[in-house]
């Protein structure tokens, strides 16, 4: 039985094109290495219509590459659009200075930025989503290059325009800034900080006209007051933010201090004891404005 020459030719052509594509890809990689400034819309693995806009908003003219070593984890099924757990992890890269989390199709795209300092380039939090959207983590390494990991989150809508649960609670202002947290020693010597702070985190987009009201800064300090990491949060972070970060704190420290400030100028301070054995609840925070 004779082989179909045409089919064979087509396969050969396909192989050839395949090689050409590989060559182009290799050349692109080379070019990226030399001049790593192009992550055109076509380069986005998720083909997001918002990519060009996102690139301009978050990275301006800085070099950007898509990099699978930056991992974003989201649930396969979203149960509550106002509380979607996500994890951004760039620990596979060395020398990460900053880790930015954003979602292309949210009305407010920026979710959080971790200024790494003495932390690992890792953050876990819960966020609101207004519709199905790419969720991205961008890690900037010491050479200034942004490494982007992306995942598509499938979700029903409405997380950003629904009023906070606090709206139904006449006493939310009395528990504002109250915090709970726990520290865990990791095998590599770093400390995992799990932390929750009471705050409505209003987006300002809700149907009930509530103004935007959110914690915009968290500052993690060692017992001696040394800055370990800072976090910028934005409106999409879920009500009563629940966060996990990994920091390297001095071995003998018995407490970790978290300083916070919201966009209305209220300041918060929570102390998490490092008991290493039992969970502990911090005292109600001293509110600066009182």
């Amino acid at each position, binding site marked *: 039985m004779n082989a179909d020459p045409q089919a064979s030719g087509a396969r050969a052509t396909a192989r050839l094109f395949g090689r050409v594509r590989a060559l182009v890809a290799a050349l692109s990689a080379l070019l990226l290495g030399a001049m790593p400034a192009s992550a055109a819309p076509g380069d986005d693995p998720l083909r997001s219509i918002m990519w060009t806009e996102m690139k301009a908003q978050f990275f301006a003219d800085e070099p950007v590459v898509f990099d699978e070593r930056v991992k974003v984890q989201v649930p396969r099924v979203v149960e509550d659009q106002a509380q979607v757990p996500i994890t951004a992890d760039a620990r596979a890269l060395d020398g990460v200075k900053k880790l930015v989390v954003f979602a292309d199709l949210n009305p407010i795209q920026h979710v959080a930025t971790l200024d790494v300092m003495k932390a690992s380039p890792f953050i876990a939090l819960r966020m609101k989503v207004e519709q199905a959207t790419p969720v991205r983590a961008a890690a900037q390494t010491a050479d200034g290059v942004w490494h982007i990991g992306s995942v598509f989150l499938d979700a029903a809508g409405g997380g950003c325009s629904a009023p906070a649960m606090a709206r139904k609670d006449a006493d939310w202002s009395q528990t504002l800034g109250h915090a709970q947290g726990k520290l865990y020693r990791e095998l590599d010597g770093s400390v995992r900080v799990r932390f929750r702070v009471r705050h409505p985190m*209003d987006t300002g987009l809700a149907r009930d006209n509530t103004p935007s009201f959110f914690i915009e800064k968290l500052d993690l300090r060692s017992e001696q007051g040394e800055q370990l990491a800072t976090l910028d949060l934005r409106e999409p972070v879920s009500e009563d933010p629940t966060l996990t970060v990994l920091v390297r704190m001095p071995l003998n420290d018995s407490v970790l201090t978290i300083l916070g400030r919201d966009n209305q100028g209220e300041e918060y301070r929570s102390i998490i004891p490092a008991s290493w054995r039992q969970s502990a609840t911090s005292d109600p925070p001293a509110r600066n*404005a009182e």
Partner: protein
Amino acid sequence: MKTWKWFATASALALSLTVAQPSLADVSIDDIVKDAETTGDVVSNGLGPQGQRYSALKTVNTGNVAGLVPAWAMSLGGEKMRGQETQPLVKDGVMYITGSYSRAWAIDTKTGREIWQYDARLPEGILPCCDVINRGGALIKDKFIFGTLDAKLVALDAKTGKVVWTKKIDDFKAGYSYTAAPLVVPSEKHGPLIVTGVSGGEFGIVGRIEARKADDGELVWSRPTIEGHMGTLNGKESTMTGKKNATWPGDLWQTGGGATWLGGTYDPETKLIFMGTGNPAPWNSHMRPGDNLYSCSRLALDPETGEIKWHFQTTPNDGWDFDGVNEVVSFDLNGTKAAATADRNGYFYVLNRENGKFIGGYPFVKNISWAKGLDKDGRPIYVPENRPGNPTKSKDGKKGDSIFAVPSFLGGKNWMPIAYSKDTKLFYIPSNEWGMDLWNEPVTYKKGAAYLGAGFTIKPIFDDHIGSLKAMDPATGEVKWEYKNRAPLWGGILTTGGGLVFFGTPEGDLKAMDAASGKELWAFNTGSGIVGSPVTWEQDGEQFISVVSGWGGAVPLWGGEVAKTVAHLNQGGMVWTFKLPKQTAQKN
């Protein structure tokens, strides 16, 4: 502005395309102290800390005001349209205003476009007595500072609207709030100070005056207004206000009222802060025999220490809710350093502002019933039977005899500020002609609950009008002219070197009157009631006049029979700015 020459030669088309960002200089304490003399800006409440609300500008005058037209208008938006009692501030081409529900804006004065907006996130359960209003902010250095309905003071970056610092004045759950425009005064020891009071007079709070550093909001001194309470200075107890139990029986002074809810004025000549104090609590005066100092008083305070330099009490042992909070306006009375104030109780007082001595007092509303007049020291000569009856002497002990008193508890004049013209030497007083049925009931104090011990209804005393704008000669008390308005007046007055008096009505009109004759020369309907205070300033050779329109405040909430004159008025929230068309301005 540096670019003014360019503007002057530019064509109208080029102007409309210009989006030059105004260059913002900091507001110095000197700018504030001299605000009354500078016509290019408005950097204090009252167009000068003396509170005269007079601008020397005369580009717009009696001859051409009829040609005044809107330059722009801006909506305050949202679903939060309630009473807009603010007075705009203007500096370097930017207007700063506050609005209902503790909001604030910066607006480009050329285009009316918003530069930033700040919305306070208010907790549930705020307890404002009289609508969700705000009466304006203060500018100092690079900050815009205003108070919120949950009793906080918020300092915003004037360029961005971002919060620089916030300070809690007191617990909103106990009835505190803050709605007055903060006062900025100089001090030698502490630098510029932000001086504020407290609101919440009907909830049994104790009034006080506080001074904070402008940079970080740190408290410098605090002065309670009710005798027996201790003041503070630099974090330590300073001196007691008055003498405990001198004019108060038992422990009622502990919840004695005297709320300082209207803010104050400052006189650079005597270096004194003038602040008025509210009614004593509760309303039922039979529970608290005595003068009840320093309720219903004007206090003069030393900015360095918060010590009371003099006081003048307008209604001792008040039984009619005649708060003494109304603004004290410094002026020159034939060479005497005088100050004048138009009280809730219907009398206009002229005092020596160096020592608080009474110079003269005159009724500015008609048919005053609770007093026959004032004695030589300015103390009221009471009509005893016009004080509501003692409930403990009634048959069932639950309701005392009801009386009809004039003026009503909303006052011959309420919060809306008066103005003084250096040219006509007249005061312009927005007053209201109304009375009230009033009776007393027993009451006990409960935190966060209204602490009145009284019931009331308000009634007009004339068929055709309640509102009455009067021009009064402070030397004689003579009323030179009167303008009558159907609905109660609730907005402030502005007077100018152009011989004009500007004010708004609940019916929505911004009006311009001849300051000498009272003749109405111009009116424009802003679409909702005006309860704010107009301002004027000069920019690039043109004179602008602005007012914020938006009906609300205490009248629709407490108005009784008065509601008939205002029930049809709709809410709003709009900044209106007026000027003369270029050709009209050149003609005069």
